[in-house]
C-alpha cells in the first residue's frame, strides 16, 4: 500500500534533520508537527522552517494517514479581536515567555503573524521597564 511508503519517506529526514539541530525540547512538546515539517527540513535550513510548513499545507491535498491529526488552529488574539497588546499587562505576557524568559515561537503561541508581532513588541517593552525578565531566574543565579 501507498500508506507504508509514505510514512517511511517522511519519517527518515525527520530523524536526521531535527536531531542535528539539537532542539530536543521542541520536539518533545510538539511531536506531531515534526513529521509534517520534516519533508522540507533537508532542503531548507532552520530559518526556512515556517515557510516550509506553510507550503506543505497547501500542497498536500491527500488526507493525512496515520499519526496524530493536525487540528486547525486559530489565533486567540484574533478570536478576541485584540487591537493592541499592552506592555504593562505583565501577567498576560508572562504566559508567552518560557521559563528562561524567551518569547515563545508562533507554533507555541498559535498567534497569527500580526499578533505575534504585537506580542513580541509588548514583551520587549515590558523587559525594558523591568516588568519581565530578560533571562530566567535560575539562569542568573548560576552566574552569580
Amino acid at each position: 500500500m501507498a500508506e507504508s511508503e509514505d510514512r517511511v519517506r517522511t519519517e527518515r529526514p525527520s530523524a536526521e534533520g531535527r536531531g542535528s539541530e539539537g532542539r530536543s525540547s521542541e520536539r518533545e512538546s510538539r511531536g506531531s508537527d515534526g513529521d509534517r515539517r520534516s519533508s522540507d527540513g533537508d532542503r531548507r535550513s532552520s530559518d526556512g522552517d515556517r515557510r516550509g510548513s506553510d507550503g506543505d499545507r497547501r500542497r498536500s491535498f491527500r488526507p493525512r494517514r496515520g499519526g496524530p491529526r493536525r487540528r486547525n488552529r486559530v489565533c486567540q488574539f484574533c478570536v478576541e479581536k485584540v487591537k493592541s497588546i499592552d506592555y504593562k499587562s505583565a501577567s498576560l505576557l508572562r504566559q508567552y515567555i518560557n521559563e528562561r524568559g524567551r518569547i515563545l515561537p508562533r507554533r507555541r503561541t498559535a498567534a497569527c503573524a500580526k499578533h505575534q508581532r504585537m506580542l513580541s513588541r509588548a514583551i520587549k517593552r515590558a523587559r525594558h521597564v523591568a516588568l519581565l525578565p530578560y533571562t530566567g531566574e535560575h539562569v542568573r543565579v548560576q552566574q552569580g
Partner: protein
Amino acid sequence: MRTYELMLIAEPELDEEALAALTERIQQVITNNGGAIVSVEQMGRRKLAYPIQRRREGHYVLVHANLERETISELERSLRLSEDVFRHLLVRLDEVEEAEAQAPAPETPEAS
C-alpha cells in the same frame, strides 16, 4: 500633536515628597515645551524583574501626555539627565487605541 505614554522608574529610596517633586518637575518639562499632560498615575513601588545597577525595586510612574516632536527630545534629554529616574520608556499610543477609546463612547446610549 500625538498622545504618548511615558513610563519611568525612579529610585526606590525616594520618599513621597521627593517623588511628588520629581513628577512635578517632569510635568513642568512637558508643559514648558509645548506639551500637555493628560494623566499622571503613580503605579507605586514595585519589585524589578531583574536588578538594575544593584537596585531591586523602583517607583513606577505612568504619564500620558500630548507631545510635539521638539517636546519629546527635550523630555528625553531631561529624563536621561535626571538622577532620580534610572529607566524610562516613551511610546506613542497607537491610533488604534485612540480610536478604540473614542469610538465606543458615542455608540452606547447609556453613556450619557
